[in-house]
């Protein structure tokens, strides 16, 4: 059973069209929930860490939230440069990071 799943698999938005990406995770043993951005041919770039339900973090047009079994990455008024794959990763005791499959975001001008 997958410990970390993400939806949608791919998302196309018009510039300025806000939306949310979802990450669902196995709760047992979770130490922290992380969001990364990955551009093609590059390594993941750290965005946010969330540790407890109700926590929110913001950076420019991105806001990450955490509930007891899901995390959301909200993108407000996206720009074409926000196009990337967004990875959710859960850090479990004794397992290090477990990455989700990612959401490929395309923002069209």
């Amino acid at each position, binding site marked *: 059973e997958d410990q970390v799943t993400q939806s949608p698999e791919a998302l196309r938005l018009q510039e300025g069209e806000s939306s949310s990406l979802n990450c669902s995770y196995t709760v047992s043993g979770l130490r922290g929930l992380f969001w990364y951005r990955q551009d093609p*041919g*590059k390594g993941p*770039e*750290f965005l946010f860490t969330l540790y407890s339900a109700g926590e929110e973090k913001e950076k420019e047009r991105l806001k990450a939230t955490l509930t007891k079994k899901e995390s959301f990455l909200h993108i407000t008024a996206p720009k074409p440069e926000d196009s990337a794959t967004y*990875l959710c990763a859960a850090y479990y005791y004794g397992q*290090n990071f*477990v*990455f989700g499959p*990612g959401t490929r975001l395309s923002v069209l001008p």
Partner: protein
Amino acid sequence: EPEVTQTPSHQVTQMGQEVILRCVPISNHLYFYWYRQILGQKVEFLVSFYNNEISEKSEIFDDQFSVERPDGSNFTLKIRSTKLEDSAMYFCASSRDGDNYGYTFGSGTRLTVV
């Protein structure tokens, strides 16, 4: 801004050959990691390294793999006898204090086994 540097960016090797992937972590970081990403698949944890020894490893990290910190700056991943299924992007990462805040990844080495 400090970076994790990986070399080479692309390596092609014949099946059965040994390869060494090199990484220079951020200088004041103490925890080092290798991950891999097979094309179109998830990023997968391989191994973590602290205080000159492996602290955690995944099922993927079998006897064909080894890691080493040969000097004060480099961190290497060796694959002894490469298989076709080892073809992937290999990412090195480092962190200062191991709690994964400020976990910095390199740009990766694309390994192609032919």
